[in-house]
């Protein structure tokens, strides 16, 4: 698999605070990678390191196959667009002037495509309105528009829907999906709004205390969060035989536990197991979502 970004045992220490602690992650090309973690888990720190705003204390990362300590890392960074924390915009300029500024920073020969980018983010009609008079959502979209100048292959968005109203959240979500589908842009989104992330992400990385707890694809997460009955019995071989005979989808987890992925008649199943001298210890309905999956990983019950 082609990876846009991989990190290897990345550490970042600020005086007495270990922000990143041996972080290792892999972002596949073409993915929308949801970077999930509590506040202070180290999400923004990682994005800052990737963007070159800070240097890692130890460890390394590779962007488009180029290590962070190589000279060519600056060339690799030319392929990324980023909105880290707040959108980086000049408040006394119009949206168009802000974009022109970024065109010049990138040394693009003309302002071709500028109107298209503004239209893409829904700011085509802002005219001479100064950015300081924009709403939070408009600023966020302008930040994304600036990140899109120069046709980047990799977009880094730090909490892109933070502080947005429901309409703004939908707009940003649709914009990200469109960029990924139509322009094949790989997107790294850090967020702690899990419901939103669940609607767009194709891959997830769960971070806590500066380290990645787990990386999963959407399919793997869906499988892990699949609605099922978790059964604890004395012998799963017997259970498996009964379920197989009844053509019920299931998964044996161990000699005593299994998951059943279909509706079953519990009384009938219990009776058949009893016939084979197989006792039931417990049967629980399991219905996990991204949020409960995350909490099961970090071992908490609420956001800090």
């Amino acid at each position, binding site marked *: 698999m082609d990876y846009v970004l991989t990190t290897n045992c990345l550490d970042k220490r600020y005086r007495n605070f270990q922000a990143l602690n041996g972080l290792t992650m892999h972002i596949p090309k073409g993915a929308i990678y949801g970077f999930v973690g509590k506040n202070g888990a180290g999400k923004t720190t990682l994005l800052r390191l990737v963007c070159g705003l800070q240097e890692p204390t130890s460890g390394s990362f590779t962007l488009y196959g180029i290590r962070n300590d190589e000279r060519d890392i600056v060339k690799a960074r030319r392929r990324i667009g980023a909105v880290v924390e707040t959108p980086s915009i000049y408040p006394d300029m119009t949206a168009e002037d802000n974009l022109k500024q970024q065109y010049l*920073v990138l040394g693009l020969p003309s302002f071709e495509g500028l109107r298209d980018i503004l239209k893409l983010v829904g700011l085509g009609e802002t005219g001479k309105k100064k950015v300081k008079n924009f709403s939070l959502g408009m600023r966020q979209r302008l930040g994304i528009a600036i990140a899109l100048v120069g046709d980047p292959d990799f977009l880094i968005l730090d909490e892109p829907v933070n502080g947005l109203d429901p309409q703004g959240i939908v707009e940003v979500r649709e914009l990200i999906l469109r960029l990924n589908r139509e322009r094949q842009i790989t997107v790294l989104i850090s967020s702690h709004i899990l419901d939103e992330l669940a609607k767009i992400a194709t891959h997830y990385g769960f971070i806590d205390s500066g380290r990645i707890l787990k990386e999963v694809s959407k399919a793997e997460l869906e499988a892990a969060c699949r609605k099922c009955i978790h059964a604890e019995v004395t012998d799963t071989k017997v259970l498996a035989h009964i379920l197989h005979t009844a053509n019920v989808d299931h998964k044996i987890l161990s000699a005593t536990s299994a998951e059943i992925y279909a509706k079953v008649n519990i009384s009938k199943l219990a009776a058949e197991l009893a016939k084979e001298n197989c006792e039931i210890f417990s049967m629980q309905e399991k219905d996990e979502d991204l949020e409960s999956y995350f909490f099961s990983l970090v071992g908490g019950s609420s956001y800090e």
Partner: protein
Amino acid sequence: MSRIFFAELRRLFHFRLYYIECAAVVLFSVLYFNPPVIDSFLFYIMIVIGAFSAICVSQFIGMEYSCGTIRNKLATGHTRMEIYLAQLILHIFAAVILFHLSVWTIIIAGAIFNWTYYFSVQTLFAYYLACICTIIFITAISVFVSMQSSSNLSSLVILLVLYIGLSMMGTNFHSALREQEMSMTDTSQVENSLDEHYMDARTRMGFEYLLLINPYGQATYESMPIFESHGEYLPMQILKNPFPKIFLFSAVESIGITAAGILSFRKKAIK
């Protein structure tokens, strides 16, 4: 680097504060120039340009940090050295424009009001080059402080305090160097005695060097190098012909400050 320079140049032309400074420099030149004394005027215009440079540079670079737009440059693959040098060149350019505005204002005013000046074209050209060197030196300090401090207010305060301190040091050293060896104690008997404030040669050389390594000392010297009100007077008795030294010190110190600034900016964590 040229890409950032041109992007920032475009931003400078959108920067209202700079236009206000340009207008203020023209106004100051018309009001304060007292022909034909061009020398002391040069000192005042250097003070004004230093203060304006502190205000403009601290606000311009401070905005990069406060708006986070410096991240757009770093995240798109520009090195920190490119960013630093582009800012330095831009602000030298901006300060030199301010200086020329002042010079052209007094030239045009001189042509209109038929002013006459003391100096030959050659001397004026030496002044001109020395002033440009001092401007580069002052701007290098302004850019250094503003790039290290992420807050435009703290940069402004640091720079203004620094420039006030340096200009006070410059004028004090200059005054000390102007002390006459002999002073007239009794005018009726025309009897002269040794001035107790007059320095020995070694101290004098130290003071002359201290005057020339300070940008505002340079400005003070540029303002009153040759003439006192009553005739010829040379404050530089040991370092004869100090103009080449002004160029040398300005260049060496500007390069040193810029190198230190780049090294420090490379390690700076940007939020």
